[in-house]
């Protein structure tokens, strides 16, 4: 997927982008002399959907996303809070990890619209 900004990495964006990625991937290797089955093995829906969803998922963990969203001051506050929770409030580690795992899914599938 092309450069992702803030909240634009959604299920819809992935669905729209993957066919283009497959087409681009196959065309770029079309004159390589590689057998067609190798080209299809490298460029297929499973790979591109998997990679695109993974990219979106971890995008919502990326420090760049949080800096962009919260601005420098908010980002620094978040960082200090996370360090504090991780080392001082150990009982909060598990809920924090669960929240971290669920948050990207809410963003990708736009569940906040429900």
């Amino acid at each position, binding site marked *: *997927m092309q*450069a992702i900004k803030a909240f634009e990495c959604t299920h819809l964006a992935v669905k729209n982008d993957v066919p283009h990625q497959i087409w681009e991937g196959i065309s770029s*290797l079309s004159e*390589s002399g*590689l057998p067609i089955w*190798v080209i299809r093995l*490298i460029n297929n829906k499973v790979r591109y959907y998997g990679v695109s969803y993974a*990219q979106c998922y971890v995008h919502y963990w990326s420090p*760049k996303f949080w800096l962009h969203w919260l601005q*420098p001051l908010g980002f620094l506050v978040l960082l200090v809070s996370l360090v504090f929770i991780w080392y001082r409030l150990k009982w909060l580690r598990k809920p924090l990890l669960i929240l971290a795992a669920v948050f990207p899914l809410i963003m990708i599938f736009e569940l906040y619209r429900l």
Partner: protein
Amino acid sequence: MNIKKSILLLLFVVLSFFLRFWHIAQMPPGLYLDEASIAYNAYSIWQTGKDEFGQSWPYWFEAFGEYKLPVYIYAVSISMVVFGPTDFAVRFPSALAGSLGTLAIYWLVWLSFYKDKRREWLAIGAAGFWSFSSWSLQFSRGGFEANLAMTLIIVGFAGLYAALRLRRTWWLYPAGLTFVVAIATYNSARLFVPLLLLVWAWLYRQRLFKWKGIILRSVILVGLLGSPLLIGQFSEVGLVRARETSILGEQGMVSTAQRFLTNYIDHFDTTYLFFHGDQYGRHSIRKQGMLYYFQLPLILIGLVQALKNRNRTNTFWIAWLLLSPLPAALTSPTPHALRSLNSLPAWLVFTTLGSVALFLWVNTRLKARILRYGFRGLFVLLIAYNFAIYLADYSYRYRLATGLDWNDGLRETVQLIKANYENYDQIYLTNQLPFVYLAFYLPIDPQLSHQLLSHNQNQLISFDKFHYFDYAWEIESQQSRLIVAPWWQTAPEDSLVAEIKIENGDPLFNVWEQDASN
């Protein structure tokens, strides 16, 4: 180390050499501008002991006015003694450093995790991931000073850990000298090495305090032996490149701090690291990240492991990871894969920590041997699949898509000029064929270059039978001549000698001739 692990390490070393040296002179397709400048300066040093401007054994090489550090250029001049003035010779020191980096990282990880009973597997894992790391391959296959500097830094810290873990304090001397050479190789190392050294010294301060006598002696000896390299660091010209690229002093303090934070965080962006990479054509294949997809979960596991078990070794590697983007964050643009190349060893160590933790977890959970072997097979298969995707992309699409980034076609153009040199009275050249390419591939006698260059290659208008021009239709001459013009300046009818194209078929230059009557 048992025989199985020795064979595995040997395989990784062989793989490293193969992946870095295979068709290295043709892929990437040409020497980019800095490589060409390094090449001609090294050639000039080899032939005359002077740089292209006629400075004897310089510390700073003026090049295009940015003043290059000396180590890589001298290394290339030695390489040219063996291989001659070829593209291979220019890339050889970098490729060799990248290949030997496999052994260097094995050594460093083995020593830094000396007290960890998993150290053998951690070291072999790091060496394995290094051997086919796309980030390392990218910069090992071009003449990049940063790649040599990174290997030297790894060797330096391995030396420090050897002194500490094996209690052989004489290792402090070669380690210190290696750091001096590293900071005379690439600019990022000038900031990164002292900072990480401070962290390392703080972490092991109790032991070092006991060794204060030997440390003082090693600092003095290294200072004396390395003084030719150290003194040059503090000269005025040594700051030229930093001033050119730095963000400091551009705006107010608050804006600069904000910009610095943004630049720094850019280097931890998951899209950059795992999916898109640096968008400079020379710095990554652009369609994939600096690290492989499969490394993402492993790094996460490794980081969590390191944060949970805070010991000195884990703290050292976290510090390595956090400090390595600092030089790049002080400059623009970001993220910059070359200036933050020093972060690669740390990413690989966390990948390895994650892998070993995963394997241990699986081994305790899966009792049936067949399931354990199945998991290992799946693990290797996923890595191989990811690597195959990279290799196909690098070998085909990348080569065709980034010809202009690597100045593809310039070598072929100069070779054509060389073949036709005797046939014409004059040779007219477009400014898009920089002097260093002509100087390196003809080659031009360095003695002549010393006389010609008045500290600005762009002002070079004519020499020997060569004349630079902007527009072919402005050329006025009554002699037979060969004209090398950009592709959009077309040749008169029936006069075309050659059309130079880059690998993807795009036109680069039109070369035509005109006889004395025209």
